[in-house]
């Protein structure tokens, strides 16, 4: 039987595959399967199961509403303050779940990486897919709350996917850096929880940035500020207009994070199996 000549694949030192992105596409189903595996296994042998995905944002929202809204007096008697907090918590949760998932993903999949070839980018990407699912559950929770508080749906909520994407990209950029670094330096395992703990307070999750006009530009250096403000702008009818210079800074930082993250990941990827 005459077969058409198969193109030759060349493996050489320092030469990354020219077909990397095509390979990534070819392995797209693996991405789905890995995410599906993590979701499926996630709540096995738990009593509460998927309720965990609701419980965590609910409790955090309750605590934040109390601390910032009541104790710090930022709520100014606004009965809808929990909604403001929840609108900020949504993107934060998407980011933090995406980051903690993707930053630990390579080491968690050591057995795959040392035994089989596939574009390694699949691994952190599948972690983001898992975070996205949790986010959708929490978004449903927000919907229920909005109904309860009688919050009208603004046309701006159509732009929400854009800000979701931005939160995912920030998580991806930082996650790529951290997961590639964790392969070599296990120190970064300990940095991530700390980073997320600090980040939760440095991001305007529990408060609105328009109450701190003098700090706005400084806060914008945290790319999540733009995302969180964007979420509130999309979801809350009485949200202040978007602070565009701040959003511009956030977008630029996001782009830098993703591009450098991809660069570092691709640069170190070929040695993962040797050092992991």
């Amino acid at each position, binding site marked *: 039987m005459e077969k058409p000549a198969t193109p030759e694949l060349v*493996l050489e*030192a320092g030469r990354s595959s020219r077909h990397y992105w095509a390979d990534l596409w070819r392995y797209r189903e693996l991405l*789905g399967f890995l995410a599906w*595996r993590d979701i499926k296994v996630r709540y096995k042998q738990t009593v509460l199961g998927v309720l965990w995905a609701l419980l965590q944002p609910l409790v955090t929202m309750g605590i934040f509403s109390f601390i910032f809204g009541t104790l710090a007096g930022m709520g100014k008697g606004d009965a809808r303050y929990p909604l403001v907090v929840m609108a900020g918590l949504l993107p934060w949760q998407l980011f933090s779940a995406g980051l903690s998932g993707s930053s630990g993903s390579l080491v968690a999949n050591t*057995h795959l990486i040392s035994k089989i070839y596939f574009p390694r980018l699949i691994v952190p990407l599948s972690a983001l897919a898992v975070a996205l699912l949790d986010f959708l559950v929490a978004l449903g929770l927000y919907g229920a709350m909005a109904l309860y508080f009688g919050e009208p749906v603004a046309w701006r909520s159509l732009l929400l996917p854009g800000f979701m994407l931005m939160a995912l990209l920030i998580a991806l950029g930082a996650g790529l850096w951290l997961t590639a670094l964790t392969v070599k330096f296990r120190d970064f395992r300990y940095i991530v929880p700390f980073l997320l703990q600090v980040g939760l307070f440095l991001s305007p999750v529990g408060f609105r940035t328009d109450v701190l006009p003098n700090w706005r530009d400084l806060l914008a250096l945290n790319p999540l500020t733009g995302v969180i403000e964007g979420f509130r702008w999309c979801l809350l009818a009485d949200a202040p207009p978007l602070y565009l210079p701040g959003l511009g800074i956030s977008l630029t930082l996001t782009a830098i994070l993703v591009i450098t993250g991809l660069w570092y990941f691709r640069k170190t990827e070929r040695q993962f*199996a040797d050092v992991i």
Partner: protein
Amino acid sequence: MNPETVISVDNLAKRYVLGHAVPYTTLRDTLGQGARRLWSRLGGAPTVDSSREEFWALRDVNFSINRGEVVGIIGRNGAGKSTLLKVLSRITEPTRGRVGLRGRVASLLEVGTGFHPELTGRENIYLNGAILGMMRAEITRKFDEIVAFAEVERFLDTPVKHYSSGMYVRLAFAVAAHLEPEILIIDEVLAVGDSAFQKKCLGKIGEVARGEGRTVLFVSHNMGVVANLCSRALLLDAGRVVRDGPANQVVSAHISTNTKSAGAVEWPGTDASVTSERLRLVSARLLVAGQVTGDVPIDQEVTLEYEFEVRAGRGSVTSSIHLFDKQGVWVLCSGPASAELGPGFFRHQVRFPANFFNDGLYTLSLILLTNVTQIQVHKRDAISFSVFETGVGREEYGGIIHGCVRPVLPWQTGPVSPAPPHA
């Protein structure tokens, strides 16, 4: 390049940098190295980082393989076999040289890579298939065939953590066996599973290569399997291809070069690990047909002898051996009766019968004792030897024969007449 060539390897080399003491690099190390580099660049004395050592797992490897060949890769542990497979399957990149591959490569370096214990058999078939590079539609198409091959129909919806190890392996191999790559790379995966299934797997590999014109690369420690299954073999030693040719010739060359392993040890008088106040272990050796060797044909007797010195005193002295197989399973303990010995040199000798050990590596610890129970010297891993097959009792079976020992027992086959009442 020959159009039939599917794998071409030119001057391939792979270097690993070994770090001692710390298994993972920590940030502090890297910062420390950075500081040292900076120091030497600033004109300070160069510092040598003695904790790093290079290791060439492969060097100057050259070969090419044509479509449809079944090639066995053999060699001792650490010869570079697994590294070669890892480079060919794109898990790790070469340090130097070039590899050209034509066609889809699937590698099976471990059985059940990516199996998740919490998922069911059905779910794992899909997951594992995707990990091995199959598309969902392809897996669905072959699903029934995979299940039938693995013989796990009844347990498809049971999480694989409840599977027996045999079922687990069967399922994992079944998925891999139904890949349709042009090049299939297999590492020692058949070292598990029951013999009947091994036979089935080997049959499948042979079928894949002969019937469908695929290329198979196969690493094994089992010389019988390599000789039976492969048309050609590569012998690796210390990272180089030292022999390349018809499988049975390379296999016999490998068995005879293996005879280099010492089979004799002598300990210097200054070695504290073999010396106590009373006793000292001097030397140990293994003999087959009067020759010192570490390689023992399975069907020949082997004699172990060791010499020791009684340094002071007079009293009850004895010794004991602890024998372990390559998995660390304790095979046996044995020792001579105690004797009243005064200063001087003495020898203990013991003979193991032919057809007693299984094939593989065995390690001996030597223990010298006084008053029956007082350990004076305990030399762990004092001497080791490997038992190799000569085909005894195999007939056409090419798989692994399990167990610590492999005695030839007086089996009998006979008719039953009249037929038993319940038949």
